[in-house]
Each structure stands twice: as structure tokens, then as C-alpha cells.
């Protein structure tokens, strides 16, 4: 069997966090979360729906652009994925700009649905493949969506995990901060400290290594999941799984 790659470890780590859910939505341009959702769906034996947004063909909505947000507001979306140009130690997400808002040093596309979905989707999984002090910062320059809210703010949703290319953080809702949950194979806790701009908690005892998917899981990932994801993200599937044609 060929070696396990980082993408497969991330797919498994995310999928574990989707276990038992009824409806998982994945944003556009998110091949790893998409594959993780498909893996979780495969394990659910038909109990989970997955919708892939921003694609005409791979979503089942029929009431225009508003429906996905209405679905979330109704409580019919259990998990969603968010990224950020910056993410800070209070789980605030910045998708807008770096520097002064009025005349920024860098400007990104914008907040999309984050300013809403982060509040109403119970498990929002933060996902950032560039884990550096530039992206994981002490304080974001612009809050597209805050990580935590005051007690009187309607907030059935919020951050559940933060997954990067180096490690996995859990969210401590009481202390309103991140706790290192596991470090991916080949990475160290010291490196995480060095590459993270915010303070985070450590678990008791030694920090575990992120689990490598077992052979049964790898079989599913490299089989049905790879095949399905290649229809949506052919370039990704070709690079990671060596299947399909690049487009």
C-alpha cells in the first residue's frame, strides 16, 4: 500500500468530527473538507447529506442563493467549514483585509457568509493549510466573524476545531481559546509554538500525534471518495490520488 499523505490524514481527522451528523455543507474550492464530508457520508450508511456549494451541479438546492443560509438558520445544517486570511487566538476569522480597513495593505475577496454561518452552524471547522505566524495571529485586523459571543447573543453555532497543515486544535468554549489536540506526523510541539501567532492551551500529558487513517479508511478514501471528489475537483484528485484527468 502506498504511503499515507498529509491530505489523507486531514481527511480522516475532519471526518471524525462529522460523525453522526445529518447535513454537512462544504463551501466552494474546498477539496479536503469535501473529501472528508464524503468519507463521513460513506460511513453514515445513508444517514448524512452532503452539499457542495458554489457549484451548479453538486448541490440540491432550488430556492436561489438565499436557501443555504436559510437552511442554516433553520438549524438544518450541522457542520460547515471556514477559512481565513487570518485566524486569531479568540477564533476570530478575517476574510477582508490586512492593515487599515479604509486603505488596506492587503485586500481579500470578503466575508462571504462567514458573518452569519459562524453564528448558527453548530460545528464550524476552521481549516487553514498555511500554518504560520502570518495567518495564525494574536489578533485579526478585521473580524469577519467573531469566534465567541456574549451570553445574550443568539449563538447556537461556533468554532469546533481548527485544522492546519501542522496540527489540530480543539476549541475550549469555556475559556474561549484553542487547545492543541494533536500534532501531525513529522511535526513537533515546539514548531507549533514557533509558527503560531496566538497563545493556546496544551492538553494534559504529552500531545498525541494525529492519527493515521487505518487501511480500511484508506481503502474508502482512495476508492469511492477519490472517485467522487474527482468529479468536483479533478486537479486535486489527480495530484493526491493519481486518478482522473487534470482539467
Amino acid at each position, binding site marked *: 500500500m502506498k504511503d499515507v499523505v498529509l491530505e489523507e490524514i486531514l481527511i480522516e481527522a475532519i471526518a471524525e468530527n462529522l460523525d453522526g451528523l445529518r447535513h454537512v455543507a462544504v463551501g466552494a*474550492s474546498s477539496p479536503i473538507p469535501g473529501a472528508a464530508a464524503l468519507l463521513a457520508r460513506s460511513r453514515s450508511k445513508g444517514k448524512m447529506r452532503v452539499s457542495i456549494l458554489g457549484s451548479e451541479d453538486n448541490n440540491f438546492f432550488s430556492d436561489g442563493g*438565499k436557501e443555504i443560509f436559510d437552511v442554516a438558520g433553520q438549524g438544518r445544517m450541522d457542520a460547515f467549514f471556514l477559512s481565513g486570511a487570518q485566524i486569531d487566538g479568540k477564533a476570530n476569522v478575517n476574510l477582508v483585509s490586512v492593515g487599515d480597513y479604509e486603505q488596506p495593505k492587503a485586500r481579500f475577496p470578503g466575508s462571504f457568509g*462567514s458573518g*452569519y454561518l459562524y453564528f448558527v452552524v453548530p460545528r464550524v471547522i476552521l481549516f487553514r493549510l498555511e500554518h504560520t505566524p502570518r495567518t495564525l495571529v494574536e489578533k485579526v485586523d478585521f473580524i*469577519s466573524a467573531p469566534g465567541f459571543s456574549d451570553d445574550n447573543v443568539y449563538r447556537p453555532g461556533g468554532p469546533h476545531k481548527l485544522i492546519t497543515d501542522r496540527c489540530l486544535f480543539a476549541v475550549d468554549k469555556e475559556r474561549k481559546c484553542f487547545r492543541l489536540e494533536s500534532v501531525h506526523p513529522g511535526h513537533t510541539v515546539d514548531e507549533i509554538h514557533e509558527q503560531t501567532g496566538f497563545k493556546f492551551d496544551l492538553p494534559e500529558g504529552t500531545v498525541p500525534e494525529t492519527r493515521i487513517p487505518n487501511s480500511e479508511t484508506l481503502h474508502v478514501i482512495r476508492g469511492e471518495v477519490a472517485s467522487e471528489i474527482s468529479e468536483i475537483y479533478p486537479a486535486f484528485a489527480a495530484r493526491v490520488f493519481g486518478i482522473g484527468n487534470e482539467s
Partner: protein
Amino acid sequence: MLMLANKLTIDELASRIPDGAKVALPPDYAYCSLTAVRALIRRKVKGLHLVGVPSLGFQADMLIGAGCVDTLETAAVTLSEFGLAPRFTAAVKRAEINMMDATCPAIHAALQASEKGIPFIPLRGLIGSDILAHRKDWKVGDNPFAENDPVVYLPALKPDVALIHAPIGDKYGNVWVGVRREQMLMAHAASETFVTVEEIVDGNLMDDLKMKAATIPGLYISGITEAKKGAWPLGIPGGYNADHEHLQRYVDLAKTDEGFEQYLKEFVLETPAEAAE
């Protein structure tokens, strides 16, 4: 004896969108009228307030680059797989446009308020965000049906113009938009809607129950222009694909002011007769 649609040439359509208008546009993955955008640039429209429903793409980037835009009200400006929108990014960094950052459902909800003729609509979320902090036109108020439950109040968002493209229209001004119902919401919410369509078909779209369910009635349509491949270089769902090579060329050229001018000259300013193609 149904009312016939107001059939316009593409330049007539562009002339009906005045300087300073608040213009709602769909995202790149819906039905965008690039042919109308080119006509607007040719007529040197000024001071537009663009509303992304809920985000903007190539249309906005071109209009910004051509100096047609004062204000952007949108949840994002993105060229998706082609990366950051170069003219948008440059304009924001130079503080040349007034940004009204939003979140997708706030745009949908505020348009629905106009659709319903209600003066405002509440929305969950947003509290504690800098989106809200910068939107002086939004308010936080109480939920009158609960204790100590703050909620954001959005004023109704009423575009002067909704500008859309669609696969088919008919001579009565009925326009089929399929699952892209945000285009129907735009037409309901805006004062006027101008539309370009791939084809004006015979008969009445409202006579076919299957088509009717996804058709904007002519009641909302101020003018219609037949424009084959009117979304080019974008594609249309269920129709033709985007012209990836051309879009990449745009993105490469638009990285610089000079490159963008060259693109405009080659593909916008020197093709005034495109509607007659």
C-alpha cells in the same frame, strides 16, 4: 392581449442605466450580462453603486477598472479559480472606492425586505463583527418577543436597477432563470430590471407550467435585449462553459493599469456593434 416587452439594443439598454444608479449584479456562477457591462463601459457610465447578490466577480472588476464605480456593496469580490480580482484589489488599496462589506445572507435578506415592501428585516449573526461595525446604515435592536435578545436590523435594500442575463425570454418580457432564483429576487426588489437573453423564443413562457415556475414575469422587466453568448467570457449554467483562456488573459492583463487599458481597448471599446453580431 398581453403587453409586449420593451425590446432594446444593447446600447439602448446601457443608456437606460443612469450615472449614479444602484445596480444589482449576480455572481459569476449565475447568469451575468457581460455584454451589458461592456456597453456600460463604452457609454462611460459614472458613479455606479454596485450591489453583489451576494458576491461580485468579473463584471465588477471590469467596471471598477474602467472608472465606473463609486461604491461596492457586497459579501465578496472574487474571480474564484482565477484568484483575487486585480482592479478591485488595486482600487481598494488606493482607497478609490467606498466599500460596504456585507455577509451573503444580509444582502439576500435586505433584498427580500424590498421584495416584500417592508422597511427593514432582522438577521441573526453579525453582532461583534467588524462588518457590522463599519455598516453605519445597519442597527442593533431588541427582539420585541424576547428578553435581552439583541438582533441586527437591516434596512430594505432597493436597487435602482437589476441587471441580469438569462438563457431565454419571450416577447412578453417573461424571462426564465431556472434555479438561479436570486435573479428573480433581484427583479422583485429592484425598481427596474434590464435583461439580456440568449434567445427570445416564440410563444409565452407562462403557458408551460414547467417553465412558468422558474420564470420572472414581464411585469418586472423594463427592457430586454437578445444577446447570443451575452455572458461571454463567462459561461451559463446548463449552456456554454466559461472561456478559461480568455479569463486568464484578462487576469494577467488587469494586473497593471496599462494592461487593463489594453484589454479594454481590444475587447470592449472597439466592439461597439457586438449586439448585432
